[in-house]
């Protein structure tokens, strides 16, 4: 099994600790990302993840490798959902095992932070009022662009 995976199926959160179990490790940290019923004051009914899988998997594997290298943990993995999810469904799991807890916590945090910031994954929230929006795309305009202005 790969250390980073995208799946369209429900994630079973209970398989990871067994996969990362290591007699040399005293610490295991798992982060589960659940679909929350609200965001920025709006009632969320469900959400949808679009994933560009070839690049998400490559970048995701890179993030895991960085975390293992940087924090010296023994093992780490991450699985992220695609498709339509309901409230309390599992969107993502990050799991890390390490001899000591400090590195395990740091590596787990690093992997989820980088996963949210760098992978080509987009989240569309469906609200109670019937509207739907792509998260992070609400605030924009010429002044906030970081795409450099260029002459054609």
């Amino acid at each position: 099994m790969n250390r980073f995976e995208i799946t369209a199926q429900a994630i079973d959160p209970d398989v990871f600790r067994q996969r990362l179990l290591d007699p040399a490790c005293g610490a295991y940290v798992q982060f589960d990302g659940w679909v929350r019923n609200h965001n920025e004051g709006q009632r969320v009914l469900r959400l949808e993840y679009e994933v560009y899988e070839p690049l998400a998997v490559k970048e995701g594997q890179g993030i895991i490798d960085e975390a293992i290298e940087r924090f010296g943990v023994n093992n780490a993995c991450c699985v992220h959902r695609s498709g339509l999810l309901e409230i309390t469904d599992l969107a993502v799991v990050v799991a890390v095992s390490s001899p000591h807890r400090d590195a395990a916590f740091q590596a787990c945090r690093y992997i989820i932070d980088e996963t949210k910031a760098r992978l080509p994954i987009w989240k569309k929230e469906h609200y109670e009022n019937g509207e739907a929006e792509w998260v992070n795309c609400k605030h924009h305009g010429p002044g906030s662009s970081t795409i450099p202005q260029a002459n054609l």
Partner: protein
Amino acid sequence: MKNIKVRYFAAYREETGIGSETVNTGAGTPAALFAECATRHAGLQSYSAALVAINDEMSDWNTALCEGDEVLFFPPVAGG
């Protein structure tokens, strides 16, 4: 002039109404190409956290484009 395949994701796919197109362009960088595409697709927004990839590698908005490149325009990501 170069032939470039452009792909739009998520909000960009909805704003343009298409998933991809092939363009013949004088644009030398993804930034210039994006600006050119925005003149043809009125709804295409310039988000502050947008990303770009070329041929399935994360890239820079100022990388030089080559004939036959596939350019992927990513609106702000939101995994997790």
